[in-house]
């Protein structure tokens, strides 16, 4: 059954980026394609059409965990998306406002859109863009529950920001400077101005093509202790609108904690599709060895041993990373903290580009940054119901499987070395057989992408490490054994 609700601000935010993709598809214009490629590298050419693929993924029928499941609101077009974003704050009962990270992504998208020809933009687009940019200004960006009367027109600062974006935002690399200037001028909130660009990489992890997002950020306004006391994943749904719920599950036998993560672009609308993922996480702390700076971290990964009844939807094949927090002043109680995060995400049935864009725009890979920018202030205003920091303790019970060990060292004779080389040759033969099987599949028109990626990863790993491994064995002999 289709819901009658209006699309959410997160859907609207995604639609801004979708409008760039649709301009590429519908225009068939090389100039427009080149423009979009400048702002969203890798989104055009064979990857054009990524927005529809992402929408299909998000509304996939297999992602229904309830019999009462409803269709989410239809994705808005650009004009509706701008209206939704303009009205997303200040109304009682409205969805939670966008975070600083999401507002930064919104400004980026509008800046990119402002470089498209007018034919591909809604009527009165300049005014619409300015009104939307205004929600990132210090005056409009307020905490949830505070009412703000709709503006009769965009403030001058929003017009100035739009002009700046049109004149100075010529490519992705220009964005930090434009935002820094906008922050100095008071056109955008200072937190929004400092959000770093999202950098993604592709990486094969255990045979899966994954998006890797690494973020580094520093704040002089927050202490390590304050951040530690909001960083537990159980708190994320309290102030990050992309996280619908973080359900606590019983701890694992090895001392890691469990949480069942629910994320969606339509969290406020009941029974609409969510991605549900069982995670385990570990909270550690110490000094930032060998330097004496106090440091703490949260590591998380897919839970390979979920609690009874803790059921995910299997759409994430890899979901792991860390949030590392380090005091910059040598005292965890004093303001000054640096956050470094990494998220490695592999999606079932979603190509790299839409997966990367989704993770970036929603701020999924930046939960640590989001909690730093919004979580600490949110807890200060409403301190009830938060999960405090509590360092995890290893119990020695069943834990992770052991995926690899250093190889045995020491080959005592020439015969052993020759044998090692023979073994590597056998490995090449095996690889050749695998590659021949792959070639046969290619020849029949099948497209064994996953198998091919796994094959190349295995081969690359051997190419990189085997010669040095043999040398290491020989060197150990000369030094009388192992390390």
């Amino acid at each position, binding site marked *: 059954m289709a819901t009658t609700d209006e699309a959410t601000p997160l859907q609207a935010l995604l639609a801004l980026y979708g409008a760039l993709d649709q301009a590429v598809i519908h225009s068939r214009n090389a100039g427009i394609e080149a423009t979009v490629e400048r702002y969203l590298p890798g989104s055009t050419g064979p990857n054009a059409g990524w927005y529809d693929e992402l929408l299909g993924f998000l509304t996939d029928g297999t992602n229904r965990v309830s019999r009462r499941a409803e269709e989410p609101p239809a994705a808005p077009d650009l004009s509706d998306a701008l209206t939704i974003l303009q009205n997303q704050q200040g109304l009682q009962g409205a969805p939670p406002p966008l975070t600083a990270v999401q507002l930064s992504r919104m400004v980026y998208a509008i800046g990119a859109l402002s470089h498209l020809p007018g034919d591909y933009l809604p009527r009165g687009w300049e005014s619409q863009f300015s009104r939307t940019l205004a929600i990132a200004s210090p005056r409009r960006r307020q905490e949830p529950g505070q009412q703000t009367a709709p503006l009769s027109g965009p403030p001058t600062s929003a017009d100035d920001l739009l002009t700046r974006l049109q004149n100075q935002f010529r490519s992705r690399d220009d964005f930090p400077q434009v935002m820094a200037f906008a922050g100095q001028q008071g056109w955008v909130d200072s937190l929004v101005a400092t959000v770093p660009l999202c950098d993604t990489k592709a990486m094969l992890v255990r045979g899966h093509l994954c998006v890797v997002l690494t973020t580094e950020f520093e704040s002089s306004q927050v202490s390590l202790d304050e951040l530690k006391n909001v960083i537990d994943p159980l708190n994320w749904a309290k102030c990050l609108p992309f996280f619908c719920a973080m359900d606590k599950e019983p701890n694992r036998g090895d001392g890691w904690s469990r949480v069942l993560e629910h994320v969606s672009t339509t969290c406020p609308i009941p029974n609409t599709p969510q991605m549900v993922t069982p995670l385990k996480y570990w909270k*550690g702390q110490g000094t930032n*060895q060998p330097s004496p700076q106090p440091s703490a971290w949260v590591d998380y990964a897919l839970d390979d041993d979920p609690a009874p009844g803790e059921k995910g939807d299997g759409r994430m094949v890899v979901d*792991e990373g860390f949030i590392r927090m380090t005091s910059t002043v040598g005292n965890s109680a004093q303001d000054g903290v640096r956050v470094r995060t990494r998220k490695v995400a592999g999606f079932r049935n979603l190509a790299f580009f839409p997966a990367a864009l989704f993770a970036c725009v929603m701020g999924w890979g930046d939960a640590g940054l989001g909690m730093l920018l919004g979580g600490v202030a949110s807890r200060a205003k409403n301190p009830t119901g938060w999960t405090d920091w509590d360092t995890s303790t290893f119990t020695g019970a069943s834990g992770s499987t052991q995926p690899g060990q250093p190889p045995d060292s020491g080959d005592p004779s020439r015969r052993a070395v020759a044998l090692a080389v023979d073994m590597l040759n056998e490995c090449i033969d095996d690889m*050749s057989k695998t590659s021949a099987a792959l070639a046969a599949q290619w*020849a029949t028109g099948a497209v064994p992408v996953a198998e091919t990626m796994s094959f190349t990863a295995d081969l690359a790993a051997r*190419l990189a490490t085997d010669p040095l*491994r043999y*040398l290491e064995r*020989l060197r150990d002999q000369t030094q009388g054994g192992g390390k």
Partner: protein
Amino acid sequence: MIDPGARITQYAESMRSLVSQAGSLVLQANDQIHDGTFDHAQCAKSAQQLANLALTAGLEVAPLMMSIPCGPASFDQLELSDFIEVAPDNQCERLLSVAKSFVQDGAPSYVIPDQTIVFVPGTLRIYAKRFRVATSWPDLQSGTYRGRVRLTRLDTGATAPQFDEVDVIVDL
């Protein structure tokens, strides 16, 4: 049209050539070990030869890899840790190596194979005090790892190697 079978055969041939050359170098080193002439200098030379060989082979193989239809164009396989800072040495360069394997915090059985650990830079110049750690291990689970790094002083003139070891916590 690309014939994937021919491409892959060519690829396998390139790999086999690499293995033969690497094997030749390793056997040569083995002979030197038996002769008692495989000292640190010879070891370093062999390592350089192998590194050059791997680089050359990689460049040769790369275009073939890229020709596999629909295969990803490139991957940055190495993600660097945050910087690690140690006290500087104002006299010698220092070679970095693993002194104690890197183990994930909270999962003692999860050990990164030593041979997949990479230090950037591999050698700290005089006065340098920062380096980063990465791993090429394809089974890595991203997270926080504890290990110990050995900093061996080079060209000290001493007969016995001089080194320091530091415990480190790295995010990988």
